[in-house]
């Protein structure tokens, strides 16, 4: 997957986790929490969905990389470069 595909995948996951939110204007450089009502259980949902969908294991010490869309995509790019878009 390339960066834009990873971004689409995260948006899809967020759509499941935060179904009441409008994700169309999500700014990549701002923390998710400043734009969406997400709590720690929601971030664990992002981690779990990546694990279930793509078998990606994200260690707890790396959770801080999931703060914004930009940082999430940057963190996932090397981990997902060999994963084909479904």
């Amino acid at each position, binding site marked *: 997957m390339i960066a834009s595909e990873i971004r689409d995948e995260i948006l899809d996951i967020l759509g*499941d*986790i*935060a*179904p*009441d939110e409008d994700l169309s204007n999500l700014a990549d450089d701002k923390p998710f929490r400043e734009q969406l*009502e997400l709590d720690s*259980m929601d971030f*664990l*949902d992002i981690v*779990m969905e990546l*694990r*279930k969908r793509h078998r990606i*294991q994200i260690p707890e010490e790396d959770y801080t990389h999931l703060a914004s869309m930009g940082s999430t995509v940057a963190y996932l790019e090397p981990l997902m470069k060999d994963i084909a878009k479904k």
Partner: protein
Amino acid sequence: MSTHAPDSLPDEQRIVITGVGLTAPNGNNLTEYRQALLRGQSGVSNYEIRYVGPTLAGVCKFDALRYQSKKDLRRGTRAGSVGIYAAGEAIADAGLEWSSVEKSRVGIYLGVTEHGNVETENEIFLLKGYDYDTAYWSHHHNPRTVANNPAGEVSLNLGVTGPHYTIGAACAAGNAGLIQGAQMLRLGDCDLALAGGVSESIHTFGIFASFKAQGALASHADPTKASRPFDVNRNGIVVAEGGCVFVLERLSDARARGAKIYGELAGYAINTDATDFVLPNPDRQAECIQLALTRAGIAPRDIDIVSTHATGTGQGDAQECAALRKAFAESDKTFFNNTKSFIGHAMGAAGALELAGNLPSFVDGMCHATINVDELDPDCALTTLVTNEPRPIGQCEYILNNSFGMLGINSAVIIRRFA
């Protein structure tokens, strides 16, 4: 023995029902539900669940998004959602201005037959797809399966900071929730109780499979005919989901705010068979009924309607009828009906839903029937059993609601017309 007889108590100890919120397989508010009961409309339909396959169930079709966001619905449990809907409807029905209610003085007491089976089964099912690697087990599992979950979800939804918990009482739980709420009001632990019962049981295959293994799962070519307590051809239980929450208040508080009053708690009792895991004991059931009557300070013939517990099993129905013949031997004016014949067995919600379905009798003077009695089982013969068609009974003063459960828990609640 302590008495609960309303006339012997000060207004601060008298407990009244001032709101009813419910979802049943044949109605999503008291008006719809009552009309369905008087029309003879069943809520049982074809249903399929993993591993068990095609079966029958009482399925609710309430608008869950009326009181919950999509996110909260996804995060929570079906039992929580049922509870939130019923509580929201009860508060609206009670005419409470929720924003001005002191949330620390509200208590939530919901009866459950079981809780957590649905989520555990779902997680294990999903885990199988990951070769049982527990790294894929959901972090939502614990908050969804803790026993207080349904009541806790209601507290989160409503911002209630007073006590909340569930009451595990098998199929007597609906009555037990109401009783707990009344007790907490009398103790002064809360000023307003949201009390009743909830069930999500149709979403666990285990309950169907276990009843089937026990030879106690109903089947019938016509789903609406499957739940048939007292009929000679009854063949078991139709599992149902549902919920019913009552707003309970002390009479003094209800009067102060000019609340509409559905009825007044006149007496109640809970006792235990201590004889078998599943088989009922009619002697203990009769004692439970008698204890509730004694506490209410009334005689059997004062009861106008007995809402029976009967579930449609061969032995259970006959045993309850034996208990009723014993407890009501001296009364020829007490009518008996059964609500499970319409909606199936709503487990933790059953007691509360069945009581709610009868409350309008105080106003309309009708006793709804037990339907699907094509051939009355002689072992279930009660001379004043109201079969198949509702019956006008004139002014109804007292309703007694039976609810019994596994491990020998018995409960009876008596509600008096408020005049």
